[in-house]
């Protein structure tokens, strides 16, 4: 896969799930940029991700055809990406990936890992995510950076990191909010991509094993 295209997919996810910034969002949602994102999705689907290709063909990602405007993104985040409400779906991995004996809470192992990872790589996390380094925006930002730096490491990171999105999507889709499908679709793209990368890596490992034999 083209690493830059994958980087773009994660870059868009980063911008969509982080607190919306007006100018940045307007620039992202501009026709040329957004069509670049859609092209990247199509190209990844066509070249090597059948799951994503099926999703696109099924129309389930149609919500992505037209990006929400800034006000819609801001207001969705204000209702759902804030903590402590019945309709809260804060996109932080610790709140979704726990073993059954654990209580979902901020600051779980994924947060400690992401904090340690950033610091061992000499990266500085945005202050607003200092205590939630496993926020989807940070993980997606990290994936984008890695794809632009070392695609193999990026694939490794992505295949390990984003499996929690399945549970996050369940929470998103349950919201009583018309705009939720846009965010679900953004997540669906990543979930499909992760599935392809994981199965690709699995095949690679199997082939490797056969060759060794």
């Amino acid at each position, binding site marked *: 896969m083209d690493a830059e295209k994958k980087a773009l997919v994660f870059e868009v996810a*980063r*911008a969509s799930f*982080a*607190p919306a*910034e007006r100018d*940045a969002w307007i620039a992202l949602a501009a026709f040329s940029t957004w069509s670049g994102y859609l092209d990247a999705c199509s190209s990844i689907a066509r070249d090597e991700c059948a799951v994503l290709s099926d999703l696109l063909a099924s129309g389930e990602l149609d919500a992505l055809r037209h990006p929400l405007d800034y006000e819609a993104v801001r*207001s969705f*985040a*204000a*209702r759902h*990406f*804030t*903590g*402590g*409400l*019945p*309709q*809260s779906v*804060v996109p932080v991995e610790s*709140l979704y990936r726990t073993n059954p004996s654990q*209580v*979902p*809470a*901020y*600051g779980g*192992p*994924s947060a*400690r*890992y992401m904090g*340690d*990872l*950033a610091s*061992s*790589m*000499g*990266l*500085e*996390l*945005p*202050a*607003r*995510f*200092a*205590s*939630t380094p496993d926020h989807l*925006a*940070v993980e997606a*930002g*990290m994936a984008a*950076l*890695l794809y*632009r*730096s*070392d695609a193999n*490491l990026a694939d*490794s*990171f992505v295949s*390990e*990191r984003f499996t929690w999105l399945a549970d996050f999507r369940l929470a998103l889709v349950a919201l009583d909010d018309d705009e939720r499908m846009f965010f679900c679709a953004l997540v669906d793209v990543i979930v499909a991509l992760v599935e392809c990368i994981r199965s690709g890596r699995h095949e690679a490992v199997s082939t490797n094993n056969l060759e060794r034999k």
Partner: protein
Amino acid sequence: MSGNAITRRGFLAGTAGVIGAAGLAGYMSFDAWERAYADDSDTHGTVSTVHSTCNGCSNKCGFTAYVVDGKLRKLIGDERHPMAKGKLCARGYAYAEIAYSKDRLTDPLKKNDKGQFEAISWEQALSEIGAKVQQIVSSDGPGALAMVQDPRPSGSYYAKRFMSALGSPNVYTHGAACYESRESGIKQVIGANSWTSDVANAQMTIFIGRSYADGLRPSALMAMEKAHEAGSHIVLVDPRFTNSQKFADEWVPITPGTDLALVLALCQVVTTEDLYDADYVAANSVGFDEFRESIAQYTPRWAAEKTGIDETTIKRLAHQMAQAAPACSIESGWRGPSGCQYKNSGELARAVACFNALLGVYNQKGGALLYPSVSAGKLDEGKFPSPPKPQAAQVGSDEFPLAVDGSALAAVKAASEGSVKGFFFYNSNMVGGYSNPSYLAQVVSGCDLSVCVDVQMSETAAACQYVLPDTSYLERSELPAFAGGAVPSVSMRTQVIDVVHPNTKPVDEIFTELAQACGVGQYFDFTMDELAAAQLASVGVDVDAARQMGTVYFNDKAFSYGSTPNWKTPTGKIQFASDACKKAGYEAVPSWIEPDVMPMGNELRLIEAKQPIHSHTMTANNETLMGITKKYDLTRAWINRSFAENLGIADGDTIEVSNEKYTGKIGVHVTDRIVPGALYLPSAYGVTVEDQHTAYGVGLRPADFLAFKLEPGYGSAMAHEVCVTVKKVNA
């Protein structure tokens, strides 16, 4: 650059898109990281220790927190802290989870047109609240604003200062639903709000509706245990056999609402049989003759009929106490029958204070001790200018003149009548249980302005227009907490971990910014650290040393046995008769008052009390504590065996509890450990905000059955003046 961007440390935005070889060399997979560190978190990383104080209840026990790489790993109760004495309770450990709770409020919220909360910026929240406050002040005066806060070191100071700066005297605590009648009644007699029973050194102590093992304070429970082991006679008067019974000698079951009759009869026995300390009474009191004359009517036989306690037991208890005097006392109670639960709670508190006075036990070893306290001295007016004293009288002070702290419920009444227009809440869930929750929610949400500062969505926050997110107690330092005691002390709450959610703020900053937004910022031109240092300096303590030690004692102010207290009453004496009570519509001397309701036929009086693992609904959303609740089925209602058998109800059945206010279903515990005529519900359950994922929908909330009515003169909630009926579900 975007505030969301990940950057290479020390590099500019232009190079942020790619990670260099050195950075990539630092990459480790989750799998590798987990093997290296995740299970080993106590042994790698930087360990630091901080002395701070718990917020699981109002005891504020001191602890040492062990923090590894910024993450809280361990709490150990501080030996030097007067409440903890080296131990924390289960709540103290578990409540620390609040810092990382999934249900934490993370941003300022405002209700939209559909009544749903939306995150807004601090700037928007503050400017809108500020404008609304100024509008209310200019149209109705500052007396139309009220504040309810559950006292914590910084919260108490800043909330009061904020309201004073606005010109409003209407600052209240949770007292009306807790201690208001007790403190007010006791103050009428001895001029102090309370005493500490010297349980550990007593020959005998009577507890009335107070269970040290349920409404937990570690040091108090340790004292009780020590007394029990030393052979002190400990009597628990309670409609229920409580967890304290393990450390007691006697359970005296009593018909709820009649504790006053028992104490009046105890007074009657010691006065009519001349068992009281006549010299002490003569030297220290006024109104005794009137008291003696009135008390004669309250014979043990009369009290036996009221209380269900036999006459012989009443007489024996009076005799035993007289014999043990002065090394004995009736404990002052907490949120029990004298606190806020009955129409006669204030009178009960007065009667108890009078009984102890008859036996001359104040400040005697084993008696009732009036401990000294220390508070911050005068501060530099240039740096910390005092706001002018509010001119208006506190709302409720005319109708409830005996309430020492005022009654928050009186402010609710005023809001329902339109004279209070704006309500602030800090760390207080008034709506969730001070009286009938749906009534309180309706009044609060009907105000022109309602603002709640808290860490999670409570029933009160849910009723407000604005919610401002507080940091948790582990994420902030606070002002010094002064405490009275055998040796008065000051303890420090010091920040343990970094702020988890960057858009939350500590209470001192929130009130400072609110004051600025309301145009009274000139009274807040200092930091909390500056104020803490100045407060401590005023009593000769260095702030850094205090934070380092956790607790500092004022040894020169230590209590000594045998001194005569300085009676701070209007007469300067113990008042067996009180003019203020008479003026408020009571007899001058403590007298019998019937409870407001009495169960008839198949009715039961609904009583509620704490369990040791919860601080009412404040801890109900804690997964660990709720795990204990579920494991031991602790939400069950208790009813007496013989009553249950009559209705065909067996232990473990589900019953429907009902009255004109509410109907709900709950499992039942059928037991001999509760008197007939009462139904007990624990006070921690029945949370109705869905936002609290763990607590929502678990158990019943006693306050839902309660009507909004207030104790005359005192303004307390009369939380047990409520009857219900029960029936078996699917019978």
